[in-house]
Every structure is written in C-alpha cells, then in structure tokens.
C-alpha cells in the first residue's frame, strides 16, 4: 500500500469500513473509498452484501434479549438459589 493518500484501499480496510458503516460510524470519505473498492473487488462485494443482510436480520424487532440490568437481576436471584442447594 502506498503511503500517499489514495482512493484505492486494501481489502482489510474495506472490510473494516464496511463493518463500521453497519453501525453508521463510517465517514463519508471512508464510504466513498469503500464503494470504489467494491467496484473491482468481488470478494469484498460479497462480504458487504452478507454484512448488510446480517444487519438487517439482527435489527429485526422480534429479536428479544435481556439487557444488562435484567440479566444482573436474574443472576443475583439465581446464585442466591444456588447457594441454598
């Protein structure tokens, strides 16, 4: 990779940007570079596609999970029970 600022980025950087953009944390310039990379890189295109699908799946409203506080509460009660046995 050349030292000077380039619009061409290596695949690792492209994947990193792609991961970041799943959380809306990639800057505009990073995204432009990613998209340029995607024009000529099949592997990263595939990775980006899968990554987007994964984001879509995990952001489905019907996935339920316990937040930290609820889990903590559960643990506390559970370990109290565990000690009694």
């Amino acid at each position, binding site marked *: 990779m050349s030292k000077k600022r380039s619009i061409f980025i290596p695949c690792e950087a492209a994947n990193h940007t792609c991961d970041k953009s799943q959380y809306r944390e990639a800057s505009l310039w990073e995204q432009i570079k990613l998209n340029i990379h995607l024009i000529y890189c099949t592997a990263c295109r595939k990775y980006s596609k*899968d990554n987007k699908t*994964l984001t879509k799946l*995990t952001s*489905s409203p019907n996935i*339920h*999970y*316990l937040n930290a506080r609820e889990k903590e509460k*559960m643990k506390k009660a*559970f370990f109290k029970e*565990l000690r009694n046995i």
Partner: protein
Amino acid sequence: MSKHQINPNAWIDLYSDYLFNYTVSRVKDRETAQDLVQDTFVAGLKSMKNFEGKASERTWLVSILKRKIIDHYRKINSKKGQAEVRVNFNQESGEEGNWLEKKIADPYDKTAEDSMENTELGLAIHNCLGKLPQKQAEVFKMKTLLGYETQTICNELNITASNLWVIIHRARTGLASCLKESWF
C-alpha cells in the same frame, strides 16, 4: 460420578437470551417472560440430578421452560377456570387485557408466516451467538443488539477501539456463516 457435565454457573450467560427469546414470543410480556426464565433456571437447579445427559443442557432447559409456560397459562386461567366461560369479556381487571383472548395462547398468532419466521430468526441468532467464542458474542451483543457506543464498550471491557472492531469483524463473519444456510 456422572459422565455428562452440567454447570449451572454458566447457565445465565449461555442460555438466558435464548430462553428469553423463546418465552417472549409465547407470552407477549417481558416481565412474565423474565419470571418464567428465572423459574426455569431454578427448577433446573433443583432437578439437576435427574438430568441424564441424553440431550444438551439447553434442550433440557427448554423442555422445563415449556412446562413452565403451560403452567403459566393454566394459572392465569384457573382463577375463573372452574366457572364455565360465558362471556368473552372480563371486566374484573379494568385495564388492557380484558379480552379473554389475551388470557390464552393465541393459536392464530403463529400462523402468520412472518411472525413465525421472526421467532425462529431470534432463536437462530441466539443459537449462533452461543456458538461464537464468549468474548465475541458479548461484544457483538453489546454493540449490535444493545446498541452501546463504541467508547462505552471499550471502557467497560478495557479494550481499544481497533481491538473492538477486530472482534466485531470476527463475530460478524462467524454469525454470517452460521446463519448462512437458512437466512441469507
């Protein structure tokens, strides 16, 4: 000494999300679901010595949970369960949930394909998360499902931002390949 291993200390970390997801889609109420999952763990603890190791720990816990869910519906129905049901409206509680339909498992609820798919998706995701190394799963959950800021996670787990992104990347790749067959 028994051959199969059972380790209740790790139960909550390993299975609570999976079981919770399973329950919420059946009782439609977070509070109740939490209580039921809690009860399941405790019941599991008490009958630990009956666990024969024929199935995985999780399967075994799910089977307990199923009984708990059924018991839950029996209980909320039993208050007026003895009386024959004449009306389909119940004025006692005076708030939402008066309709009798809300007091039983809704049989039509699962016929809608998307709802079914979503339930399965939740389970599939928790299942795959369970297969990841614990650190990856933890970071991924915090970042993606709970939506924490990068900085918050870094502080909490004492890792650098680039470290975090590497973990996220591995978790995403792992998850994608785990979910690939049925969900992509």
